[in-house]
């Protein structure tokens, strides 16, 4: 009982954290970048029907927002927008950029019906089209080393084939109405959230967080970061300290394997807490069965 009370008290006094970390295949090693400085490139094609400068600036502000976190030292160097190969994913030995691009046509509209890429996959790169779910607004594809979780490449695709992206401030755009001076699908709101994923963050259960999953139409609150987002990014990439990686994985720039951290929360303290609880559990089962039985009897009574 004392151990339980102590653990409960410890949980109450510890800072709340709701962020999550992404993992290889959902249950493998935690995803992380090996360096604190990596680049991104906006494909210059932009999106049809919208002047490109505001949308590009919105993407830049999204990355700048993450770079401005003072308890981390992440930096994002922008490679000047250019007409790229618009190739999402990763090719070993190839030129791999961390792209941000808009797909402006659906694959179903442009790919010949007999092309095997429709069933095998790969049409998006071959035909420069949106091959994903038509309901998807944006998708982030992260390529990593299977055994360590080290991210090699991360690309953000925005579905310009089906969604009207805006950069203005204002009220939510009316459904089906004009999209001037109002917010439909805000570029900065969307990319700031997706950029968090490119860095290895998953979703937060904190409803105020930028990494929270749900968003109403016309939302702009995710343009900036909130305390839980800051806590999450600083837990992975703490300023001046090693990157947080899975147990057994060598942190970048370190000679020793990672001591480990959970997939969520404030990292090492949780691992310690779990370890303490596990030890206590074992003691309960092995060393003090009588005491446990006595408590059960008391509780039943």
């Amino acid at each position: 009982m004392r151990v339980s009370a102590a653990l409960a008290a410890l949980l109450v006094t510890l800072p709340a954290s709701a962020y999550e970390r992404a993992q290889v295949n959902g249950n493998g090693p935690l995803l992380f970048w090996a360096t604190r400085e990596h680049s991104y490139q906006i494909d210059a094609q932009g999106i049809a029907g919208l002047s490109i400068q505001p949308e590009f600036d919105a993407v830049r502000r999204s990355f700048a927002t993450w770079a401005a976190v003072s308890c981390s030292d992440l930096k994002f160097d922008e490679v000047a927008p250019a007409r790229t190969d618009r190739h999402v994913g990763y090719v070993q030995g190839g030129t791999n950029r961390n792209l941000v691009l808009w797909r402006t046509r659906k694959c179903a509209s442009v790919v010949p019906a007999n092309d095997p890429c429709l069933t095998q996959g790969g049409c998006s790169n071959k035909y420069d089209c949106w091959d994903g779910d038509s309901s998807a607004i944006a998708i982030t594809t992260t390529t990593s080393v299977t055994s360590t979780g080290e991210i090699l490449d991360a690309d953000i695709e925005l579905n310009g084939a089906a969604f009207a992206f805006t950069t203005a401030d204002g009220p939510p755009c009316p459904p089906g109405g004009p999209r001037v001076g109002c917010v439909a699908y805000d570029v900065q709101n969307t990319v700031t959230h997706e950029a968090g994923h490119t860095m290895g963050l998953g979703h937060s259960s904190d409803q105020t967080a930028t990494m929270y999953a749900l968003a109403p139409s016309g939302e702009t609150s995710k343009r900036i970061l909130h305390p839980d987002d800051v806590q999450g990014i600083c837990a992975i990439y703490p300023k001046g300290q090693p990157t947080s990686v899975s147990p057994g994985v060598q942190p970048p720039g370190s000679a020793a394997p990672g001591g480990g951290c959970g997939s969520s929360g404030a990292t090492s303290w949780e691992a310690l807490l779990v370890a303490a609880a596990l030890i206590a559990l074992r003691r309960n089962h092995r060393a003090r069965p009588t005491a446990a039985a006595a408590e059960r009897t008391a509780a039943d009574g």
Partner: protein
Amino acid sequence: MVRSTSMRRILVLMAASLPAAAATVRGPADVASLTASAESVLHARVVARESRWGHGGESSGLIFTRVTLQPIEWWKGAGTPSPVVLRVPGGTVGELSQTVEGVAAFSPSEEVVVFLRKLGDEAGTGVYAVEHLALGKFSVAGAPGRPAQAVRDRSHVACVGCAAGEEDALPVRDLRARVLRAARSAP
């Protein structure tokens, strides 16, 4: 026992922080809306999974996982009793893994209900994609003496326009009834 249970609860709460990452989709994603937007709705069991590069091999730059399903019952759409294939973005090929966020994940032998869009045929086998990413998949699990439950995991999907009350867990028979009702009323 009280002590063990309490600590187990603490551990479960702490361990419940599942890994997550996400794409962003547009809602709603309630059963009726999903049924209306899907070409087919299938109750099935996973019989095989395999990840491979997209068409063209490694140069495609994209990894896909092919999930083979043995149909139990088609709830919408005139499907075949033969196995069908789902093409899901992402997966692992050797030392390279690709995480395409928010897509539905499938486990070996898992019983599922999936809302589908057909991509084409390969040698007579239908190839499909899951609608609304992970929101278009329910996992079915039962406990002895209790009706089988259909549960979906939306923790990996960001949704704009999804309602807070969209059900993510309900008895399979209720899910089936809702799908059939929605399919009948669909245009």
